[in-house]
């Protein structure tokens, strides 16, 4: 086990962890002990992973014999260490600005036109900005295996006045540290 480096470990204020589909999928691939390790990590650090509704929907529709088809996301929700976020208020101007910024970041980094990036691709950013602007959280950690999305959310929130209140944690790195 590598040393754990937990973002915002040294702050007393509320920290919200927003997790992406890829984290749960990566935990389920090959040996399932990674999923147990993630639950243990959440409990030990008193973390409830918040997932956008979109992420929940994505994990639900996978083929039975695939890894995500066997990911026990519902039991994690029942057990309380994962929770599904309410749909963000897309009419809020800060939310929509952040989503636009995330979209253009992903488009550039993936070498695609902006109209090839979907609203769902920006869901992590929308939930993050809502938590921060409602003061539900002082800090947000976005944990994802999608490097582009993670960096995009940090860039977009930084550009919209939330600098130093957001961090991206690489999902594969987190798994290496906790297993």
């Amino acid at each position, binding site marked *: 086990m590598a040393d754990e480096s937990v973002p915002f470990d040294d702050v007393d204020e509320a920290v919200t962890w927003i997790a992406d589909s890829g984290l749960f999928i990566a935990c389920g691939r*090959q040996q399932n002990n990674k999923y147990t390790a993630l639950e243990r990590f959440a409990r030990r650090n008193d973390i409830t992973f918040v997932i956008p509704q979109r992420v929940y929907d994505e994990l639900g529709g996978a083929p039975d014999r695939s890894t995500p088809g066997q990911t026990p996301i519902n039991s994690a929700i029942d057990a309380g260490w994962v929770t599904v976020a309410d749909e963000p208020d897309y009419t809020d101007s800060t939310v929509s600005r952040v989503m636009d910024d995330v979209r253009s970041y992903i488009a550039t980094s993936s*070498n695609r036109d902006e*109209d090839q990036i979907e609203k769902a691709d920006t869901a992590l950013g929308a939930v993050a900005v809502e938590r921060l602007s409602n003061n539900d959280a002082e800090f947000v950690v976005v944990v994802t295996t999608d490097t582009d999305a993670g960096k995009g959310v940090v860039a977009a929130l930084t550009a919209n006045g939330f600098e130093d209140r957001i961090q991206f944690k690489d999902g594969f790195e987190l798994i290496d540290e906790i297993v």
Partner: protein
Amino acid sequence: MSKATEGPERAVNVLLSVAQLLEEPRLARLYTFVLREGEVTIDDITSKLEMPRTTAYSDTGTLVELGVLTRDDDQKTHTYSAVPITLTATLDDDEYTVTPTLVAAFGRSPHDQDLDLLIEKYGLGKLAAALTYAIPYTNGEMSERVAARELDLQYAFGVAVLQALRDVVRDMESVDPYFGDIQDAREHPPATEE
């Protein structure tokens, strides 16, 4: 072999060898193992791949016949090494270069439920296509979401496939001499719908 036929003959023989490697995952896995190790004995194969001795002998024999492994008979214990293969298929404007990385991905499929399901449901062509996305994805140059969507798989399943291939890419990048020839989906955006 006359000089005039040597080129075409070799090309077609490579085509047939590659086709056979991509037919039987056990051969693909053995070939990949030898390529990664550099030089191996039958003992290495039986212990590392947990393969019965008779299978190890017969499979290495098959691969030597195909010309993708060579056997060094000079030493007391025979050693095997791999011949890196590369084959470019061109169809109209579409091009794909098969290299040892695709062989490695195929060889892993019986041990990886996501790759196995992908090949069963969509065939080897989809695995090859997924690899062109897994390369920029692994290098942080393409969003997981964009790649999974363009692969046209159920989203979460697409992510699982990309993650499975990420392991292959990381293992093969430094081993496959033709890795750089594999097409990169980042360079080929899908046509925007009018």
